């Protein structure tokens, strides 16, 4: 597999009718229509899944793993369902029921993702907030936002909190605990994540900020929903629930900020709104802001492209479940231990997150200026309708593609029609 351009978002060609819907919603202008089919430009795609959501023909989807294949590879297997799962079933379903239904898919054990969100909350609140840091702190939990910042806001990279995501932290803690408890080699323990998120699928294979993920396979929540649903009736007496009333709210927008107890925070969901607010932060306009929680999907992870339930409904269900859980209380020992895991690098982002300047026209400024002039010239002859019929999302992108030499055969249909009409008139 070519790791450099691995993406979870893919196109099923036979379903694509070349309708331009996805061109318009892509926040990084990473899609072009070529020969009547949508093509994703690998280096621009941030795997946000907006195109999957909008496609009326369901031609866009995400590749994920088949968990049955992965289970076979390990002596002991652990499933980590995203907390979003808790919102996918009717309100009467208890967390214990859902967890045992997941376990009965064939896993040896289930770990709740709150294992991670609790450790992270503890480290940020008791340690990172006290350290000197670029403000506002930016959450590292949304991989699509991290990739967006790499591309569009490289100056804000130092603001990102250098802590792993709840899933990664949970996987790490789970493997170490199980290895100790059962005397197993870490290599023999397999962790499978049940994901609502396309960007997470990508970032587990092709991580940002760490060398290698502890997650061994990712399953789409959509794909296993039916099987979990059928398993719901089974016994769940032995299943323990560790979540507390605030750690469970992480997949809902604002959940992280509230768990951290920060007063001056901004929680923004939806990638276009996140872009707008990051612009303001980049311009130093939000003085005194402590924490920025930005999530690509509407409503938070509950709005992920690989979910079944509507995000508002699942948000409400998770909130209801939270009411039945005990409040967050962390012992001194737990706090110290979490900080130690962070300091030791077990749950920290130990690799630098590099900027990716894919927007630049050329590495040489003189050539860049020349190309920009050409784009400006070409734009004068284009209608400026941004209709997308040529295959590029905007007239400007069309001109850029020509100047970059990426689309020598491109034609503006609107302009051609206009010329044709003028000729006829004369």
């Amino acid at each position: 597999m070519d790791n450099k351009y691995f993406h979870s978002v893919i196109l099923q060609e036979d379903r694509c009718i070349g309708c331009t819907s996805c061109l318009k919603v892509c926040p990084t202008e990473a899609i072009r229509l070529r020969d009547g089919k949508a093509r994703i430009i690998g280096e621009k795609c941030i795997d946000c899944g907006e195109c999957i959501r909008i496609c009326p023909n369901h031609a866009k989807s995400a590749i994920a793993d088949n968990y049955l294949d992965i289970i076979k590879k390990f002596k002991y297997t652990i499933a980590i369902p995203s907390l979003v799962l808790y919102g996918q079933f009717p309100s009467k379903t208890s967390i214990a029921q859902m967890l045992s239904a997941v376990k009965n898919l064939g896993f040896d054990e289930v770990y709740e993702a709150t294992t991670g969100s609790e450790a992270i909350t503890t480290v940020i609140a008791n340690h990172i907030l006290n350290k000197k840091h670029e403000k506002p702190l930016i959450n590292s939990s949304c991989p699509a936002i991290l990739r967006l910042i790499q591309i569009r806001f490289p100056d804000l990279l130092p603001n990102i909190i250098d802590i792993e995501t709840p899933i990664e932290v949970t996987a790490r803690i789970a493997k170490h605990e199980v290895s100790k408890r059962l005397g197993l080699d870490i290599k023999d323990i397999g962790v499978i994540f049940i994901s609502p998120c396309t960007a997470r699928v990508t970032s587990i294979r092709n991580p940002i900020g760490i060398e290698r993920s502890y997650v061994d396979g990712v399953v789409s929540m959509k794909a296993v929903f039916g099987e979990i649903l059928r398993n719901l009736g089974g016994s769940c007496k032995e299943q323990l629930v560790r979540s507390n009333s605030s750690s469970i709210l992480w997949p809902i927008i604002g959940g992280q900020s509230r768990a951290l107890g920060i007063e001056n925070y901004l929680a923004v969901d939806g990638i276009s709104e996140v872009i707008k607010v990051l612009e303001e932060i980049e311009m130093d306009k939000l003085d005194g802001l402590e924490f920025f929680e930005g999530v690509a999907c509407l409503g938070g992870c509950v709005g992920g492209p690989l979910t079944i339930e509507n995000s508002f409904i699942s948000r409400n269900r998770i909130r209801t479940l939270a009411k039945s859980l005990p409040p967050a209380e962390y012992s001194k020992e737990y706090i110290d231990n979490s900080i130690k895991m962070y300091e030791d690098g077990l749950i920290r982002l130990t690799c630098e997150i590099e900027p990716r300047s894919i927007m630049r026209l050329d590495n040489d400024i003189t050539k860049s200026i020349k190309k920009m002039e050409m784009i400006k010239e070409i734009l004068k002859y284009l209608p400026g309708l941004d209709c997308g019929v040529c295959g590029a999302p905007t007239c400007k992108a069309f001109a850029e593609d020509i100047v970059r030499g990426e689309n020598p055969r491109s034609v503006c249909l609107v302009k051609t029609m206009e010329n044709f009409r003028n000729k006829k008139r004369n």
Partner: protein
Amino acid sequence: MEFMKYTFDVEKDDFVRAGEASSNIKRTLRELGIDSAIVRRIAIATYEAEMNIVIHSVGGQVELEIDPNSIKVTARDRGPGIPNIELAMQEGYSTASEKVREMGFGAGMGLPNMKKCTDRFTVESVYGEGTTITMEILLKAGD
């Protein structure tokens, strides 16, 4: 030598479009491959200048000029002009009313901020005619 120029109109009291010129300039510079720290400095300075035109003037223009050695932004308005430039350059000096300042605007940091963000900064003003602010950032080879 390669050279480019862009002009953006800025209207009095048009708060809906305020910030468009600096946004466009930011995007253009990023596409040219200018170092992101420099892009940020220019964008902040341009935004301050743009807002000054929206709030204080009767309208004007922001102009961006780029060549491989420098980026120059000129903010020009059609009046009324600044009566006392020296005073206006002082940090904290503001003509905004107490009420406006209480809301968090008009901190009197606009011009000093522009100066801080750029390598060359001049402000010329004729009271009754208008103000021209020129700001320049020099590009090192390789940026």
